[in-house]
């Protein structure tokens, strides 16, 4: 596998603020990479630099092996869908989709028409071609934006939180649709989001960003179960990983691995914690038990509602975690580590 989009030591500073602070990423051809991070982590700036809308302060960007760092967007053969979809409000859907082709030039009217109708067909929006954007629903707008993005057959597709304007129900189906669409076209895609559910469900790989830096790149499973540092560990999962300060390491375990002793099948070498229950929250499928260990560190346990566990505030209960689910982090750097390793 060759890397198709590459950033090398990419930096962007805005008046002293390091929005993107040395990012090395390499995205394979045909891959869907999700850039995940909280708002303000620099993920959108990173994408805008790849698109050519921002000039990096330092570093290089390569697309298909070619230096594009200083090229304008139109020389990069990319397409982008913005959070707002940015449909041209004064143009019909047809003209919106045709716009990139006309801007590119060199195509006859008939060819443009053919491509526009093909793209509209793929996304099932042919009946909407004569409408104006304001006459469309959120889901329809998203399809139009996608059709406009794919119509010129870009080599890289950039998506900036394209699902965040949809309501929760539509979002799930749009995500599913987007993933199938991407696999069918096999187009290299970078997807920016702050929503971990979206990231986990969508990405071939996920790059987790925080404070301008990429903290970890890996498959959804890797970043969830082998989080590279305490930030990734606590950012992913809902709720995030429990962290307890030990004498040598920071010890972490996920809420769903913390079981009440009396209901759990556990091995002999499981770690045991006595937890003072604070609050019990029934979420339907799961029950969240909030409490504290040693009167200080807050922890959460996620127990399937099928279990018979019952506790109320103030109760002291013993919980256990199987050793295989314990994660160790360096107390100073927060990086993952193995006990006993030098």
């Amino acid at each position, binding site marked *: 596998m060759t890397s198709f989009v590459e950033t090398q030591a990419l930096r962007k500073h805005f008046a002293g603020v390091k929005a993107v602070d040395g990012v090395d990423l390499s995205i394979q051809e045909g891959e869907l990479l999700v850039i995940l991070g909280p708002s303000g982590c620099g993920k959108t700036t990173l994408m805008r630099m790849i698109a050519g809308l921002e000039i990096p302060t330092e570093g290089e960007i390569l697309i298909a092996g070619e230096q594009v760092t200083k090229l304008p967007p139109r020389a990069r053969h990319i397409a982008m869908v913005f959070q707002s979809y940015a449909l041209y*409000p004064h143009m019909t859907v047809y003209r919106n989709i045709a*716009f990139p082709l006309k*801007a590119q030039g060199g195509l006859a009217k008939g060819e443009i028409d053919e491509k526009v109708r093909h793209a509209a067909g793929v996304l099932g929006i042919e009946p909407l071609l004569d409408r104006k954007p304001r006459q469309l629903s959120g889901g329809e707008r998203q399809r139009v934006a996608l059709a406009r993005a794919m119509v010129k057959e870009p080599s890289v597709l950039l998506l900036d939180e394209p699902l965040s304007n949809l309501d929760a129900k539509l979002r799930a189906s749009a995500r599913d649709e987007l993933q199938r669409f991407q696999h069918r076209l096999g187009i290299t895609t970078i997807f920016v989001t702050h929503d971990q559910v979206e990231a986990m469900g969508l990405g071939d790989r996920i790059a987790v960003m925080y404070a301008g830096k990429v903290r970890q790149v890996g498959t959804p499973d890797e970043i969830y179960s082998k989080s590279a540092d305490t930030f990734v560990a606590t950012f992913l999962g809902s709720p995030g990983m429990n962290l307890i300060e030990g004498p040598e390491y920071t010890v972490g375990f996920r809420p769903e691995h913390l079981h009440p002793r009396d209901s759990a099948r556990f091995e002999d070498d499981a770690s045991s914690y006595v937890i003072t229950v604070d609050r019990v929250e029934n979420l339907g499928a799961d029950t969240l038990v909030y409490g504290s260990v040693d009167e200080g560190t807050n922890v959460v346990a996620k127990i399937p509602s099928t279990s018979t566990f019952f506790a109320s505030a103030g109760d002291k209960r013993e919980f256990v975690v199987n050793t295989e689910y314990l994660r160790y982090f360096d107390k100073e750097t927060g990086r993952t580590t193995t006990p006993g390793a030098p």
Partner: protein
Amino acid sequence: MSTETAQPSRFRSLADNERALGALMLAPAVILILALVGLPLVLSIAFSLSDVTVGDTSLDYVGLENFRNVTRTPQFRRAVIDSILFTTAALLIIIVLANILAVVFTQDFRGKWLARILVILPWATPISLGTLGWLWLLDSKFSPIDWVLVQIGLLGPDTLLGPGLHLNYLGREYLAMGSVVLVHVWRLVPLSAVILLAGLTSIDQELIDQAQVDGASGLRTYLQIKLPLITPILAIASLFAFILIFTDLVVVFVLTRGGPIYYTQVLSMWSYNKGIEGGALAEGAAIALFFAPVLFVAAILILRSVRRIEVT
């Protein structure tokens, strides 16, 4: 304390009554408009249908006699043509220049604030003073423009613009007409540019980014995205400029007084010459009333563009 809450003051109850409060707050504007616009309009209609002059101020009804009289004169044709010609020419130039300026000012460059101040100055200057400045610039003997033209070899013996050392801008038919247009352009470009600038900066940046990503050049982005999006605002800027030029008296009054002969005598100038200078109040009023239908249409168009801005 308790009595205060139990019995709200009269002022307080008025402040809570939206109908009364609304009427009260609108009243000054309504009175002002009735006194300064309504009354003169009624008066000029009354004048135009009468035989009133400065010497005989009694109003005797003569029907449309005044309108028939003024439309029969050669000055009428010329005044209508001049008014339309000056307005159209100035407006076209203003729209082009204001667009260019507005685009320039959306860019970042060194000394932008200074450039902005310099551009807005003509608008901030009283029209009469600014036009006086132009009167000197265009003077038949002392025009510095002539001097510059002579120095760079465009004016004088054996040059492109002729053997004389003076072009006499305000004394020759087409140059005088051009000068009037020039001054209108000079004083109204800033206003239009500022209105357009406001329109351009209100465009969602994501749309412009999108156009860039879609591969559009700067020119295409401007012509196909920005310009259509600011059309309602452009319409308002144009209509304002239209009204200000079409009804203007000051520029012609200071620059040419309608001359040479009556070649720059626009409707307003002619109305003034006839009604005030000539004392024929009735005919002057009749001439001025030719503005009414045009301004009525312009006002409707402005209100419609404002609604379009609100809709989009």
